[in-house]
């Protein structure tokens, strides 16, 4: 039996109100999973807990068989987290940024240098490798952060609204990268408000509302769940979110 990439069980987090409410979620290894939900549904809070940025109040997070709550370091080695607001240093160049991130994840320097060049060339950033990130457009910054997320070849890539503010070309590059990543055996979880992206890219889609998973499955499964064979994801999403 294959180990799940991510198993979240009875996960709970409360701030002023309950943000994540006994959430159960499983993401299979090698799939692209889109987590959808209206604003404030608990998507980002859930993913921040999975990435080890927030401690859950209760519940379990298992990443490729590693208990992320008990052994966060081992779990973090397998994960990369990329929020919509790129985790960048304006005064570093992309190459320096990748050197820093590779050092944090303990990647062998020689291997990291080779991988950095591959990633920067692939993302069309090689010519700008020595320029400071402060001079970059939003798309270039997002691609640099994406290169940072991939430098340690994570088994699980988590992206929170990765296409926000990107132009069509940059968005296409990111989507291609995600597809290739999954084709190469990687696992990707993403949140997005662009439902067309989830519809076209995701193997499975989860819809979360008020911190709970209200629907999950492939597009066909969601349609059959709604009893409408030709419903668009947008129609299903609006109906589920409103219920």
């Amino acid at each position, binding site marked *: 039996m294959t180990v799940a990439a991510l198993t979240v069980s009875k996960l709970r987090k409360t701030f002023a109100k309950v943000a994540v409410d006994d959430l159960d979620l499983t993401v299979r290894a090698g799939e692209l999973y889109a987590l959808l939900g209206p604003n404030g549904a608990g998507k980002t809070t859930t993913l921040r807990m999975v990435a*080890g940025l927030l401690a859950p109040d209760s519940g379990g997070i298992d990443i490729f068989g590693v208990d992320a709550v008990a052994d966060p370091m081992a779990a973090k080695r397998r994960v990369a987290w990329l929020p919509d607001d790129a985790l*960048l240093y304006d*005064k570093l*160049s992309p190459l320096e940024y990748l*050197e*820093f991130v590779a*050092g*944090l994840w303990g990647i062998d320097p020689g291997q990291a240098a080779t991988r950095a060049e591959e990633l920067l060339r692939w993302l069309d950033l090689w010519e700008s490798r020595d320029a400071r990130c402060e001079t970059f457009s939003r798309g270039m910054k997002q691609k640099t952060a994406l290169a940072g997320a991939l430098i340690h070849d994570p088994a699980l890539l988590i992206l929170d609204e990765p296409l926000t503010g990107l132009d069509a070309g940059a968005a296409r590059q990111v989507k291609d990268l995600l597809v290739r990543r999954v084709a190469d055996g990687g696992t990707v979880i993403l949140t997005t408000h662009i439902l067309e992206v989830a519809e076209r890219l995701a193997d499975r889609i989860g819809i979360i509302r008020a911190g709970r998973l209200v629907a999950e499955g492939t597009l066909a499964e969601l349609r059959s769940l709604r009893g409408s064979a030709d419903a668009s994801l947008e129609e299903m999403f609006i109906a589920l979110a409103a219920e």
Partner: protein
Amino acid sequence: MTRQFTSFAPGSFAWLLRHELRLALRGTGTRTNLFARYAPVLLLATVPTIGGVLLAWSLRDIGHVTARDTTMIHNFLGLAVAGLIVLMISTASIAVLRTFHDRHDLDLLLSAPLPPARVLAAKAVGVTVTVAAPFLLFTAPFAIASAVFGHPGWLGGIVMVAVDATLATAIALGLIGVLFSAIGPRRARTVAQLVAAVMGGTIFLLSQLRNVSPELAQRLSHLVAVPWPSPLDWPARAVVGEPLPLLVMVALAGLAARGSSLFGARHLAASSDVTTRERRVRSGPVRFRAGVARVIVSKELRLIARDPELITQIGLRLIYLIPLGALVLRGGDDGSGIDAPGIAAAATAAAGLLASSLAWIVVCAEDAPDLLAAAPVAPAAVRRAKLVAACLVPVGLALAAAAALVRDAPFAAAVTLVMGSVAAASAAVLQAWFGRPQPRAAFRRRQSGSFVIGLGEVLLAAGWSGTAALIARGSPFAIAPALLAGMILAGAIEARRDRERHDAVLQAT
């Protein structure tokens, strides 16, 4: 009921100016409570008000002065006006950068159906008011009280502060406008900040010349006794209310304001959206390193080295210590020699204060905390590496001071190195424990965010500095300042434990 937002007509010059002043005022702090925001200003205004009234009262009968006295007073006032304008250009340059460049609201304002000249003029006048305000706070009470006590002409002092601020704003707008179009916004920003810092530092050092170099101050004081030719003395005569010089100065300021709003502000607005050229950081290949500590230290040092604004602000803090250091260093009764314990004390204090600033930058002003939190690295390891990065430069400073002493006073050299390192480490730890996460841009006002930390770091630096001086002199009283520093650290440890216990309780509930 519709809420009346303001009594000014929306889009009018006054309305735009009110908007600028509100933003400028809110930029001075993060407090939202009205009392908390204005109480320090009122408190600050009390001292010059009382002082100004008392001074004006004591000078109420100064009617009959000799020609020599008049010359000296005029020369002194002339120097004050000149110094004030340099200081104001420094302040105005920073304010212009913030208003026209950092606030990123020009696109919004210029896209509105309002005359661009009005928008730019409101911004320029907003800068003038913010530049003049602190100086008016100190001069206006004296001038008004003097007018009440029989010297109405001295109200010219208030007018001259406004004239100086207007001229300074015009010069700053012109200079920065030219810099923007010549070298691009980013470089212009760096150059303007450096120039502003150098100007401010120079004026401060000149004002402290008696402490820094009494000999030079003595030589320069002779200049004050010689009458200045007209019209060089007009600014001074305007301050005491002579009508013609005052009118000329006001007209000059009006012309400068008109010129700057036509040329400088427009130039600046047009250059603000120039696409920034890519800035290359090095030509050789980046060497990938292994080890978390090494990459963190290297990243922190790179970020500090590439932030000229931070470097100038840290440099200014050290410049402000020079007069104090000069007082300490002038050892011996004749005040001519330099003693080793004095150097040990100054280097220790500088290392502590520098480490505190750097620790705030690397620990509290981390640009990507989530990246570090998501990395498979223990938070304690990250903090240790950051503290090492914060202490490297201050310890280097102590090492340089020790190297300068080692031939003539090897014991004092050893004390300098050890106490400098202790001061740096303890100040950095204090900041790492209690500093609040803030963006780097908040560096200038970081201490207003935490008065206790600010006071603690100054007392800590003073304690270790005194310890260094007294150990170097071989005095057994070194134990006293060491105890003070130790007590501050003990208090900090206890406060931290308290906070951890409190956090644990919160977590549990």
